[in-house]
């Protein structure tokens, strides 16, 4: 019974997302961004020769140079940009979608009709999460087809899909929780834009890790920051301890909190106000 209800809701949400061109725009953007990375970002290592010269000069002066994670050098700019392309869409922009779907249904008064059906807040929220999850996974698969990660195993690709799923679910639920008190998209847009800008503070920290120090270390607690480095770990050379557990810990806690908030606000506020 509940599975049938979830399936009906899911089908409705998929059709709405399709009609609103969310799938088309998301996949087109994925193709454009991944294509740009494939064409413009160098797939060869830069600076290796310069490092060799520096090491030789250091040794000539009696110094010793030890590289603790030599495989870390093997990540090209192209490979480093793939986690950024995935994270920006799935997490930073994806944050909006759950909220927008809810607000669209408020505007169309679909929610008023749903209120008198046997479905509850849990099914309603789950359906939104699954639609966004599908979109996130399709987007990620498209990016990985256009810029195939060199040497990544099937297990690593599965791990990427796992990171994307966890991140997408957390951000969709966060978006729903944030959107619940608002009347429409125009009033929701600014708070969501501010939240997205905070989430995107992980971008400069990914490009230059020293950015997340000196009073900016709060960036390390963002799920986007953890996701950037978790994807880098899975698609890159690997070997950096604590990255994946760090992502699982922060995103796991984030998922539980956002799920509880999204369900509670949908059940206690959204469903009540349209009754």
């Amino acid at each position, binding site marked *: 019974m509940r599975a049938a209800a979830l399936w009906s809701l899911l089908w409705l949400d998929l059709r709405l997302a399709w009609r609103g061109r969310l799938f*088309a725009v998301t996949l*087109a*953007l994925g193709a454009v961004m991944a294509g740009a990375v494939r064409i413009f970002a160098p797939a060869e290592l830069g600076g290796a020769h310069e490092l060799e010269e520096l090491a030789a000069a250091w040794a000539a002066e009696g110094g*010793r140079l030890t590289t*603790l*994670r030599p495989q870390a050098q093997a990540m090209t700019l192209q490979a480093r940009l793939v986690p950024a392309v995935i994270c920006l869409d799935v997490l930073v922009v994806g944050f909006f979608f759950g909220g*927008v779907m809810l607000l669209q249904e408020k505007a169309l008064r679909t929610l008023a009709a749903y209120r008198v059906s046997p479905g509850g807040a849990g099914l309603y929220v789950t359906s939104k999460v699954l639609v966004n999850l599908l979109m996130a996974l399709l987007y990620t698969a498209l990016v990985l087809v256009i810029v195939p990660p060199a040497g990544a195993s099937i297990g690593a690709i599965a791990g990427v899909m796992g990171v994307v799923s966890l991140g997408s679910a957390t951000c969709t639920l966060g978006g729903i929780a944030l959107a619940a008190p608002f009347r429409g998209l125009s009033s929701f847009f*600014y708070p969501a834009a501010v939240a997205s800008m905070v989430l995107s503070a992980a971008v400069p920290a990914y490009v230059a*890790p020293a950015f997340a120090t000196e009073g900016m270390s709060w960036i390390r607690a963002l799920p986007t920051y953890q996701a950037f480095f978790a994807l880098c770990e899975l698609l890159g050379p690997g070997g950096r301890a604590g990255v994946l557990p760090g992502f699982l810990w922060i995103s796991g806690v984030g998922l539980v909190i956002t799920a509880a908030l999204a369900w509670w606000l949908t059940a206690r506020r959204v469903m009540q106000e349209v009754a």
Partner: protein
Amino acid sequence: MRRAWAAISAIASKDLKVARRDQVTTYVLAGSLLLAGAARLFLPLVEGTQPRFAVLEGAPAALIERLEAAGRVELCADEAALRARVLEQDDAPGLMVDEHGALALLLEGDEAPAVVASTMAAARSEAATQGGGDGPPRPPIRAIGLSLLLYAAVVLVGSAMGLGIVEERESGAMSAMSVTPLRFREYVIAKLAVSGALAMTLGVAAAWVAIGAAAPLGSIALAALGIVPITWLFGLVIGAAASNQLAAMAAMKGLMLVLVSAPVVGFMDLGGWAWLLTPFAPHWGVQGMFAALNGQAPWAALWAALWAAPWVAGLLLLLRRRVTAAT
């Protein structure tokens, strides 16, 4: 003329009332000023970020002194702690004197050559990267960050205008307006005037919050004026292309790629490819704001207005067709 003015002010007044009722104005102001406040708080920290060195306790005092002249030194109790520190994500190289008395440099492996070179130079007591060094000049992070923020504060107001049009279409208000004497040009002028005035005000207010009384507010206002057509472009794309809120989100997502990437790419060294950015109004808008923040004339913002104007005109025609079709 008098009738047109009455119609324009009626629509503008209605938009302001709706924005106040839905607290859109509050969120627009609060969101932008909050980000400006955060920029004021955090950008000096980012700009003042120093290179970090992890050093094993017991290293020669002269070495620590030399490294402290170039950045911040973190002492580690033993070699395991030193290695763990080097493996953290912030590119802090490690230094220790090994059992043979040689100076050992510990790297993670993904440090940029410039980081390695500056660490070696600091350890050797050569001209360090900080103060008086002959290394590459540090990028003006604060001015870049502020110009992007002020550009965003001005342009994002377009979302309120675009989403307002979408909501009018969804709620049937547009159909109701079609049976009044209101003309399309009066409707559009009211929308553009309200969003333009709000965008200008917000740009200047955000600059004042982010910089304080020292902000060159006149130049910033001129730069914001040049960016306002991009605000309109943003709003009109949403208003003309989207039939509902989901489609509006899709339109915003598509447009964000150009609105965000062109200004960011404009600060990169593109060599002979820089001309490719010429037709991108967002690039010129941010460059204009960057010039204003550096005390120069924001001529680039004029280019932003010129490049955005044909798009705005085309979108107005499209919106007119959509409005006519909808009513």
